[in-house]
């Protein structure tokens, strides 16, 4: 903030307001990155991450049921084929948007990685 633009400032608490510039820089940087292709890719990344998470959860659940012996051989066979197809489709979608497998993994900070 240019001092010559300050018409009235609170006596001692100017630092209450002193957050503007980094925010502005941040906003501008984000703005130039936001070309349509990147926005699409970012959205695809988010959606595919959620789908990938669900896929892995379903797969684990299925494996538990297979291990528990509650499924017939035919059901196990069908499940395996379904998961294989889903896995291939995910790879295709990833490639279409130029995403690596690691791109679908989110860093959750103290909780670790999503996948």
């Amino acid at each position, binding site marked *: *903030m240019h001092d010559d633009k300050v018409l009235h400032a609170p006596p001692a*608490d100017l630092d209450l307001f002193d957050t503007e510039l980094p925010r*502005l820089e941040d906003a501008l940087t984000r703005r130039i990155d936001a070309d349509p292709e990147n926005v699409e890719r970012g959205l695809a990344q988010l959606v595919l991450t959620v789908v990938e998470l669900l896929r892995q959860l379903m797969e684990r659940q299925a494996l538990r049921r297979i291990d528990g012996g509650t499924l017939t051989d035919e059901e196990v066979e069908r499940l395996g084929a379904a998961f294989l197809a889903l896995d291939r489709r995910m790879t295709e979608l990833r490639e279409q948007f130029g995403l690596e497998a690691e791109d679908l993994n989110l860093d959750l900070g103290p909780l670790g990685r999503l996948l």
Partner: protein
Amino acid sequence: MIELYAITDHPGPPLPPVADTTLATAGAGSLAAVWAPVADAPAAVTIDGLRRHEAIVEALMADRNLLPVRYGTRVPDDGAAARLLIERRDELARALERVRGTVEVAVRVAAAPDASADPARALAAVHHPLAERARAATCRVRAGGDLLRGAYLVERGDVEAFAAGVAELQDDLADLRLLCTGPWPPYSFTD
């Protein structure tokens, strides 16, 4: 390519000198666009570029009424700028009339340290009284880290009195802190 800085009256007073470039106008009817040539390469958006844009608009603001053009607005040439003025003539002329003779004064409102205050309090105690003193007013609540950010369209000659009014408000408000800046080009009153 040329970059646009402001829409002003045509004809207007001589253009001010600015660092590193020469300003020119593209006139159409009663309106003119102030522009400067730029390289054809895509604009890099930088803080320095933004400050430079702001400095040019403020230099223009010193002796003319204007509508500030959004930073980074580029068109192929002055002919394209003139066409833009013609296409949006009525709308631009109305907007310029609305800000004629005024500047924008900004007021940011934060809660004082250890005080609890919400945007409703900032609206009632700061924005509404200030809006009554201005030709036009607008605000956003919970903007950035602030409770409220107000923008007020004030007659050029009334800026000091307006700022004094802000200082008086502050004296009566222990739970809020006010930061008043300006005069700015009428950024918040240019659609």
